[in-house]
């Protein structure tokens, strides 16, 4: 029977390396995709994933509140992503060409088969969204991604970003306003 997350965290904090390995398995995809959306390329996302878990491992003795482990982990990932964004030089903020990614790469769109034209449309749209996100300051970007993509509540985002909830609301409102303006053609309501 699979261990639940709180048990794994308790065991990890107690020094159980198998529990840590399991936590890496369970959270790495979430951290990767969040970092990818923040930074826009595989190399930087990869760096964030590795660095996040290394830092969590180092800080294992500081973890007091098992219930907020996800926020704790996400906070490390977002802070590191924001640092990288501020220093970002050379790495493009446009999505990678699928041919450049490792392994058996395919664009994961949905469980159904997509036609080539649909795939191309999705790629174009994805790049357009990435460009729009790239215009946002780091904190607004991460707030919009955590809320509208990852499904975090405003309270959870406030914990992750260590700021008041009012700041989260404000950043979210401004980010959405900017994105709406940039993506207005995509959002045009057809009669």
């Amino acid at each position, binding site marked *: 029977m699979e261990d639940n997350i709180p048990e794994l965290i308790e065991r990890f904090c107690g020094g159980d*390396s198998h529990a840590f390995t399991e936590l890496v398995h369970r959270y790495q995809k979430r951290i990767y995709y969040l970092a990818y959306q923040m930074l826009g390329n595989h190399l930087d996302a990869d760096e964030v994933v590795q660095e996040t878990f290394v830092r969590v491992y180092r800080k294992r003795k500081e973890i007091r509140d098992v219930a907020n482990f996800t926020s704790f982990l996400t906070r490390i990932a977002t802070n590191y992503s924001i640092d990288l964004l501020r220093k970002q030089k050379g790495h493009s903020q446009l999505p990678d060409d699928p041919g450049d990614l490792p392994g058996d790469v395919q664009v994961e769109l949905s469980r159904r088969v997509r036609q080539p034209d649909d795939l191309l449309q999705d790629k174009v749209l994805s790049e357009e969204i990435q460009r729009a996100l790239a215009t946002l300051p780091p904190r607004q970007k991460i707030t919009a991604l955590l809320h509208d993509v990852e499904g975090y509540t405003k309270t959870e985002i406030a914990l992750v970003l260590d700021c008041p909830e009012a700041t989260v609301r404000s950043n979210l409102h401004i980010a959405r306003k900017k994105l709406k303006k940039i993506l207005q053609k995509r*959002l045009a309501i057809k009669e």
Partner: protein
Amino acid sequence: MTCHLVQSLLDDYIDGDLTASQTAEIDSHLALCTRCREEQLKSVKLRQLLASRALPDPGPQYFTEVTELVLARTVDMTDSEQRAFRESVDSSRNRAPFFRSLIAAAASIALFVTAMYVGSVRPMTAEAPPADSRIRQATSMVAMLHSDDNRVMTDAEKLRLTSGMVLIGPPGMVGRYADMATVLGTK
């Protein structure tokens, strides 16, 4: 409720963060106001676009490798090895900007010294230089500025001097100043 107020609350309305009475008021307004309804639909569509965005999948092999790399840097390392690793990463990160600044400063000083040397070996005179010189010696700045004589520098000479100044470039452009001698005809 006014349209301005409704649109300012739309985000919270869609997120389900309003009270029951506020929600009911906005529901009534949206039933009657086309403009606000359109804004609501755009807001909903934006969330859908962001949430359904296609992202590249790096493949299962990648995640297996990441796990191995993370374990190699954590569980498989002793505390002292981890400390030494961290110190080496931190010191290389701290060294790089310092050395970059040092190189930029050295290049600027070298450029300045070269400019001073070139300036000092070419006498500043108000007399017309020999006709066969590739570039006339610079007259004093004051004489040049007040001179109506267009023959102080020919157009070709002006172009060559401007090219030399452009080639020199801003401080930190190591190596470019080396071509100055060719441009000024002292080589």
